């Protein structure tokens, strides 16, 4: 089966630091891939290169067989890749609905004339978008759906994560990149959120996910396959049980001599 996303010797340095060194990585359609490794091992850099925020210095990236190595963040989003951020980057003063609609950009009519003059047509699109956003958020937390027009400021961390994931999912992407969704949450909250993510996946069978995570319980539970990075290099690859037993991985994580 052809991979959905394929990286070939992807390289990115910051000064003398190799953030990604000749990384080869494949994600099969409908897979959940765990990307793990110690802090600074290049996981977030990989996401930033895939989404076009950073340029790769060498190597290639392809998505559904198309080359996206030099594509802009906009083009990547339009191709069907969306993401969440490690430090939640929601627009805090805006409402929950507004934040989700930011992620719906490509499915909304952005014409100046449509937006300013065709208020009736705009209202229909607005109402349809509201229903879509509500249906999506109800999969996560029905109670949050009642608070769609409240500001995100003042919402708890788990709600912010939910909103961020909804913002990434509303445009029905083919590939979702989750950057440490458990950061800043308690163990129980993390478990709840992962249950919800698995539920979402049942609703959208064509969704492929790459997840960066430090919580090994999460990785074990939801991933089909894992890639372990250390200092920008891939040191192991395989199902969680296999990589957890790998001495190199244990050394990188636990510092065993």
């Amino acid at each position, binding site marked *: 089966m052809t991979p959905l996303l394929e990286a070939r010797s992807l390289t990115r340095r910051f000064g003398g630091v190799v953030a990604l060194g000749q990384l080869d990585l494949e994600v099969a359609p409908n897979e959940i891939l765990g990307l793990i490794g110690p802090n600074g091992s290049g996981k977030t850099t990989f996401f930033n290169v895939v989404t076009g925020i950073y340029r790769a210095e060498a190597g290639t990236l392809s998505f559904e067989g198309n080359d996206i190595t030099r594509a802009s*963040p906009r083009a990547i989003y339009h191709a069907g890749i969306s993401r969440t951020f490690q430090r939640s980057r929601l627009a805090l003063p*805006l409402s929950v609905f507004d934040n989700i609609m930011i992620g719906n*950009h*490509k499915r909304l009519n952005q014409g100046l004339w449509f937006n300013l003059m065709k208020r009736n047509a705009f*209202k229909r699109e607005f109402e349809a978008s509201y229903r879509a956003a509500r249906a999506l958020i109800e999969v996560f937390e029905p109670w949050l759906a009642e608070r769609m027009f409240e500001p995100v400021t003042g919402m708890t961390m788990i709600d912010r994560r939910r909103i961020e994931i909804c913002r990434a999912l509303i445009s029905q992407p083919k590939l979702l990149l989750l950057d440490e969704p458990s950061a800043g949450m308690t163990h129980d909250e993390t478990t709840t959120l992962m249950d919800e993510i698995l539920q979402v996946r049942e609703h959208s069978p064509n969704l492929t996910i790459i997840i960066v995570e430090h919580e090994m319980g999460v990785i074990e539970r939801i991933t089909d396959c894992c890639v372990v990075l250390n200092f920008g290099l891939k040191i192991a690859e395989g199902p969680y049980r296999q990589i957890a037993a790998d001495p190199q991985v244990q050394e990188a994580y636990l510092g065993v001599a």
Partner: protein
Amino acid sequence: MLPGVIALALASLYLSALLAVEKQPLIIGLLALAVIVALGAYWMGWLASVSRSFADRENVLGTMAIVAAFAMAAYFHDDHFVLLLIVTVLLYTVATLGLNIQFGYSGVLNFAGASFFGIGAYTSAVLNARTTVPTLVVLPIGGIIAALIGSLLLLPVLRTRGHYAALVTIAFALLLKAFLEVNDVLGGPQGLQVKGMTVGGWSFNDSIELGKIELSFYMSYFVLSLALLVAAFILVRRLERSWIGLNLDALRLDETAASCFGLDVARWKITAFTLGNFLIGIAGALFGMVGGFVAPNNYTFADSLILVSILLLGGIGNPWGLAVATVIVIVVPEKLQTIQEYRFLLYAVMVIAVLLFRPEGLLPRPLRSYFPGWRP
């Protein structure tokens, strides 16, 4: 809706009283009263219910505000000075609505607001004197010229962010003033006369007689300025309550995240900057005709700062707040003649106080509601 109606009625009565009174001690008393009432209303939570009713029933209250403005103008129908003051407030509000699109929504701080206002005024001076373009058509041309000259700034503004983009606009304001001062075709430092508005052979600079009542010639300018303000208000409102308003907010709050969700940062910054300059230019074109005169010294960096301070005072992103702040910034120093030369000190104190104690401005922008009163 009742709190909004009461607030609107009280505000119009108060403003009429302030405009009518001449004695300095009385004016100081009125101003002190306003501060006390405003603070009291804030502590009692009345201000919040007023802003809620404005948010829910904006169309009704907006119509009532128009009626109130007409009532006020009718009361001062033969008072040139007061009507000119009202017209100034109306046109400055249009200009700050333009700045609001730029800074309040897209986050591009334009410190050359007065320059674009002046470009509009110069456009009417030149077109009215040398061409036969109908003066009503000159207004949008003033806006277009301001937007076109503003597009010179697009490249540097797009390549910089935040404070650096603001510096670009400051440089432009200073350069434009220097250019106008040495340019003889545009009157040099002395400036140009601007011919008044004429519509269908009827000159706005003639006084109007209705039976036995004589109306000030500023009355026609009042009607036109109010119409312009209403149109600008509706435009800004629709912009905010659309996906475009959302795009502008998204790029102001986090450009990187916005571009990860497909937003074309350059396109929307250009749209906001150009649209804002267009509004400022139209207001300036009409203001030039009202004043009858335009010179480089009328539209300096200091005047741009006044426009920005209106924006900060009123509540960035809230058109109603801008209207209130424009009244404060334009009317108070005119009426309070005793502080005349200290007016900039007054502005500075007000802006610093707002930034310290109420950073969102006097009337903070409410959460976006795409269709007021809409319930799921």
